């Protein structure tokens, strides 16, 4: 009897392990279908002098936008992201903004004027932009709690933040 119970436990465990393996594989293939690559980690200095590392936001849904102050859609996106950040930062949403203005003072002025509260980082060597495949701006990358790139936008229309918000809420619920 005891032997049977033991056998049942072992069989159950083996089944569970197999199911777990298959579920894990399923999750990986889903990630592959949506193009969910791991977001490359980076550390950059912000305009306020602090250093920020992406991996320190692991566990949060993270939005990274790449921009310059000379680009109109970028400025619109920054303003809308500021609103989104104000609404959702307490819910586990982080925003990192990567700027590569040739004149950092222009970006600094924009940040001050618009009261941008999230870190705006300088990517002077454009190394991070290259790693994220930035060829045009604005570019917005959404990263889930596991550090996977889930959505990428290569443009911005006014009011598009509603769409961002819905996707971010979905990612928060996962």
């Amino acid at each position, binding site marked *: 009897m005891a032997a049977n119970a033991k056998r049942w*436990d072992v069989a*159950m465990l083996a089944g569970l*392990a197999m*199911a*777990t*393996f298959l*579920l894990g594989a399923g999750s990986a293939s889903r990630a592959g279908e949506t193009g969910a690559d791991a977001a490359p980690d980076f*550390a950059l200095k912000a305009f306020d002098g602090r250093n920020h*590392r992406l991996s*320190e936001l692991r566990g949060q849904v993270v939005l990274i936008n790449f921009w310059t102050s000379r680009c109109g859609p970028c400025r619109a996106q920054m303003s809308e992201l500021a609103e989104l950040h104000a609404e959702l930062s307490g819910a586990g949403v982080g925003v990192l903004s990567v700027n590569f203005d040739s004149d950092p003072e222009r970006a600094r002025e924009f940040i001050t004027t618009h009261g941008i509260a999230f870190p705006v980082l300088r990517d002077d060597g454009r190394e991070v932009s290259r790693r994220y495949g930035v060829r045009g701006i604005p570019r917005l990358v959404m990263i889930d709690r596991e550090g996977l790139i889930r959505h990428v936008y290569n443009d911005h229309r006014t009011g598009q933040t509603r769409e961002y918000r819905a996707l971010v809420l979905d990612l928060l619920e996962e």
Partner: protein
Amino acid sequence: MFPMKFFRSTGARAAARAAPRRAGWLAMLAGCGAVGLVSAEEFSAIDRDVEALKQEVLALNRDLFLLEEELLFPANTQVAVFVSMDVGEFFALDAVSLRLNGREVANYLYTEREVEALLRGGVHRLYMGNVRAGEHELVAVFTGIGPHGREYRRGAELSFAKGIGPKYVELRISDVERRLQPEFVVRKWE
């Protein structure tokens, strides 16, 4: 927590993250199975087994990490450079750049959390690589905010002979009270 985070490679970290997730699935499946199929005692036994399995996965992950390191950095060529910090009253660390035999091998920006971890006694492995046996030169450049809130940049160098065993080098930042200045020391671990 800090040293583990600092010491693991990206791949190992990913595996480490996957392990608890899978264990979570196991627990959930065990929970589902328990609803109608097994008694409370049996469930408890399964729970223990699942926990043991989880521990085994973690141990396996650790072994894989060590094996990976041994393969990538064999002892006869291995050189590792660590950063540590003491007090930090006269120096707020911003970045460390490392040159080995004239070639930049690491350039690391430290966040506030990382600096705090260093001040709490954490040690950061800044670089791990391979060099041939013989004489080598290491130059570390520290940047940050020094006494009186001024930008501070200081270099420290070390010449060392690489033998058949692994070579460990520590870059230590400490305060010199009598001079009210930070001190940057490069030393070999024997």
